[in-house]
């Protein structure tokens, strides 16, 4: 199909300095876990987007010097010739597909803990980072400022050598240039502090020097948090924000504008739980009023209508995207081809971001299982190897894992029968998407449902059978499938078993009317009393989401949490606003406590660290610490159990127990994936399904083939012409 003319505006080229972007789709800098040390990963993950139609594709933040070292988190680096060589792979591959490559030159100041380099960083004033807490910078004097500006210039020259078309001076997320601009960080009284002109001086001088060095060859971009959201304690868009844009505009070709800081950068990379697409427009829209240059901005734009609207309305010139480009690297191409319903829409869960926050493992995506697997496993998001056999496959369970396995198997040309007892594809996502703020997570189901319904029409032997009685072991054995994939999901524990005690809580039993599991809440048959105590031993969203749901429905909610409540949501950037919500709505949280027993109407809780601090060997049968005596009772009408999950694996184990019958029934293998294998993130369950579908004809499809590793190689020095042997100072 042809592109809808209403989207033509998204495909108009736009000039930025000496370069031209071929359309208005632009992947802003975002982390992926590749950096400069995994050049294959970096090159493949970025260039797949160039192939998918994006006009500009950037690195993640890219350190200009070892004194901006973010280790344990993972940035790219442009420190030396070794980095130039490795990043060149990325720019070369991007250029092959006709897109421009950008690099985001970064100096973190106190926010970079320098745990690898052991350097001390510089900043406008001395403070310890509100992001790192333990790390202080040194207050820069004039010599230091001259040196800092030169670090950007030297790095820009290396960036040009590495083939970058767009060179950023990165001043969003509270990094160095913004620290000079913002009175929150800048307490100076010299010509770099005080008035706006003085606070802007460092940034403007740096832009001017970088422009002078590489401006004829590269477009000069700057990423600017136009409002730090602290009111007049920081930068406000209609005060310092637009004035700074006017001052720096002559030295900039491309403004990349957002809001917020680093400690709460979820205000920029807003999770769908709290923010809809385009949530930064009220701030971003001011920039085009004062700038003569191209302006781009993010806002998790997933919808072509909205993208066209913000450009048509003159709010932005270019659609910046990080998460939507991860979820669907072919988003521009699909819009161009009129394939709107083939777009794998970002659900805004921020699990991609969580990996950077954790400290740099390769990123993952809930929607796109191929994200980060392009190089090491050779997975293309839109291309699938033709089936390697005529095997027919029965997939039991249409949740994230089973639906993804079926989709990829069907894409590969296999005959697949997908069965589920639910009326709808989606599994647990059908329930999760009903939780407060998580409606967009339903896009995960919607994408697979749409694709499966298309694919099943291409092969009349394939079938999607929903709403049927759960399959038994005998039915599976006699189904006539060559291979069976079990993807039957997991349940929340009904007896209080948790990762904390590894045992049931005496008295807890979800078959009783006062005890309720999350599934029972979704089912809606059990009456929930006014006073709810929610026992939580899960680190992710279920407990706080149920607390929101029950509180909104008028219940008094107390969470007793044996683990840090919503700990994983620090990593997904959902934590600050979630805690604000719980606080605003008077949800009581009792932390570091767990339950020792329960009975109708009350539960006995204790402080997890309430036993003796002193450890002594006291012989068998005796604990090495003084007994915990912190037990007390709290009352409830309903006790909600978010204590732990258990795989629903009975079908798989039943089939395994009758493996001797497989041969006679023509069954070549039975496999288990997703939560049924072990409870996990939706992203990882989706990966399981994708992975087994690509490897179903392998000798052991249950277990993943080895992937290609990118590691430092003994004998190959990082620096071209350098040495690798062990050498000590003499």
């Amino acid at each position, binding site marked *: *199909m042809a592109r809808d003319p209403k989207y033509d505006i998204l495909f108009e080229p736009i000039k930025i300095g000496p370069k031209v972007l071929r359309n208005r789709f632009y992947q802003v800098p975002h982390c992926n876990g590749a950096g400069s040390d995994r050049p294959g990963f970096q090159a493949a993950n970025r260039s797949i987007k160039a192939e998918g139609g994006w006009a500009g594709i950037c690195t993640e933040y890219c350190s200009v010097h070892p004194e901006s070292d973010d280790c344990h988190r993972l940035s790219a680096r442009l420190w030396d010739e070794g980095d130039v060589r490795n990043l060149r792979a990325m720019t070369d591959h991007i250029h092959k597909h006709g897109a421009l490559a950008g690099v985001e030159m970064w100096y973190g100041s106190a926010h970079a803990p320098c745990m690898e380099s052991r350097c001390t960083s510089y900043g406008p004033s001395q403070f310890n980072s509100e992001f790192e807490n333990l790390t202080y910078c040194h207050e820069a004097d004039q010599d230091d400022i001259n040196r800092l500006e030169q670090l950007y210039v030297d790095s820009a020259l290396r960036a040009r050598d590495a083939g970058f078309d767009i060179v950023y001076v990165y001043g969003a997320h509270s990094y160095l240039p913004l620290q000079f601009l913002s009175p929150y960080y800048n307490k100076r009284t010299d010509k770099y502090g005080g008035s706006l002109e003085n606070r802007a001086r460092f940034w403007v001088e740096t832009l001017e020097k970088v422009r002078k060095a590489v401006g004829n060859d590269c477009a000069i971009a700057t990423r600017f948090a136009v409002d730090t959201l602290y009111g007049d304690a920081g930068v406000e868009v209609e005060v310092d924000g637009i004035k700074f844009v006017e001052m720096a505009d002559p030295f900039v070709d491309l403004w990349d504008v957002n809001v917020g800081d680093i400690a709460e950068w979820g205000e920029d990379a807003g999770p769908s739980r709290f923010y809809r697409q385009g949530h930064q427009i009220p701030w971003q829209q001011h920039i085009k009023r004062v700038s003569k240059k191209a302006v781009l901005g993010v806002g998790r734009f997933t919808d072509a209508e909205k993208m066209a609207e913000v450009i048509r309305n003159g709010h932005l010139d270019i659609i910046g995207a990080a998460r939507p480009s991860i979820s669907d690297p072919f988003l521009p191409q699909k819009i161009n081809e009129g394939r709107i319903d083939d777009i794998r829409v970002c659900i805004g869960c921020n699990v991609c971001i969580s990996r950077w926050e954790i400290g740099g493992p390769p990123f993952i995506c809930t929607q796109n299982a191929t994200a980060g697997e392009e190089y090491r496993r050779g997975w293309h998001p839109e291309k699938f190897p033709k089936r390697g056999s005529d095997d*027919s496959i*029965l997939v039991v369970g249409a949740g994230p894992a089973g639906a993804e396995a079926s989709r990829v198997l069907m894409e590969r040309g296999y*005959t697949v*029968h997908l*069965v589920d007892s639910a009326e709808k594809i989606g599994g647990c996502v059908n329930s999760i998407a009903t939780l407060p703020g998580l409606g967009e997570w339903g896009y995960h189901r919607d994408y697979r449902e749409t694709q499966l319904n298309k694919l099943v*029409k291409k092969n*009349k*032997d394939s*079938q999607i*059978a929903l709403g*049927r009685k759960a399959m038994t072991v005998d039915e599976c054995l*006699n*189904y*006539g*499938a*060559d291979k069976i994939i079990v993807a039957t999901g997991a349940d929340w524990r009904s007896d209080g078993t948790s990762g904390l005690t590894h045992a049931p809580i005496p008295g807890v039993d979800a078959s009783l009317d006062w005890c309720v599991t999350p599934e029972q809440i979704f089912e809606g048959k059990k009456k929930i009393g006014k006073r709810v105590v929610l026992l939580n031993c899960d680190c992710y969203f279920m407990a706080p989401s149920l607390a929101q749901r029950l509180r909104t429905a008028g219940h008094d909610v107390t969470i007793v949490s044996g683990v840090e409540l919503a700990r994983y949501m620090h990593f997904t950037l959902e934590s600050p606003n979630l805690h604000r919500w719980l606080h605003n709505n008077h949800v009581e949280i009792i932390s570091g406590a767990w339950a020792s027993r329960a009975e109708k109407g009350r539960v006995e809780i204790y402080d997890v660290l309430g036993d003796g601090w002193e450890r002594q060997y006291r012989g068998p049968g005796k604990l090495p610490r003084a007994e915990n005596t912190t037990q007390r009772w709290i009352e409830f009408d309903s006790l909600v159990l978010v204590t732990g999950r258990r795989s629903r694996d009975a079908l798989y184990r039943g089939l395994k127990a009758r493996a001797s019958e497989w041969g006679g029934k023509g069954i070549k293998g039975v496999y288990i994936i997703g939560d049924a294998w072990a409870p996990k993130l939706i992203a990882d369950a989706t990966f399981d399904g994708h992975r087994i579908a690509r490897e179903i004809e392998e000798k052991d499809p249950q277990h993943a083939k080895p992937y290609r590793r990118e590691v430092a190689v003994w004998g190959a020095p990082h620096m071209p012409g350098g040495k690798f042997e062990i050498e000590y100072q003499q």
Partner: protein
Amino acid sequence: MKILVPVKQVAVLDEDFELRDDGLDADPDFIDHESNEWDDYSYETALQIMEAHSGVEVVPMTVGPEEAEESLRRCLAKGGERAVRVWDDALAGAGPATIAKLIAAVARREGADMVFAGTLSADHSFAMTGICVAAELAWPHVAVVTHLEYEPGAAKATVQRELEGGLVEKLTVDCPAVLTIQLGINQPRYASLRGVKQAKEKPVDELTPADLGVSGEDLAASACFRLRRMFKPAKGQAELIEGTAAEQAARLATIIKELKGAA
């Protein structure tokens, strides 16, 4: 005892489609085919009787080109041992009475004791074919059946029909009879992969009208109407007024004048 189940491969239009140059049908480039949903229910009705009693044979049949065999294989994947497909290129565009003549001929040839058809087909929605089959065979018929009590070989069947307002009509019908089955009478089964594989090996008898002793003249005479034209009715559409404020005002004024003129 044999139950004949005529099924149809129906046309499904793409979201955006164009009409054929002769204006009598949609352009085949924009058409997909699938089994008629009602036929899942009529076939299931027959299979349930077959499974509950010994000596019952269920034969699915269709009047359609080679591609329509898919719908028969789909039936055979769920049960039944053989199927019948009737076709001649001259049948392209044939109406329900013509199709019914051929179904009736198959019923006679097979010695069918009952015919279960779908109430209607999803594409043309005449709801005529089953009833015409009854007329051809001079059998009684009941349309829109939502419940059936029938012992193979019995002289009468008891059926229920759902009427307006949730009213249920219960009646008996002499057998043999033609019943047209409504959605929801049962829960149609899905095929297993074993069934899908086995269905590929089951025989489908391919017959022409001539094989059934139906001549071209018979077919021509059976056409009870002639398709004149197929078209998309013009719809009132909103117009996005573009341009400068002055241009937009001018366009708006023109529209108002036109509307006043029309009134």
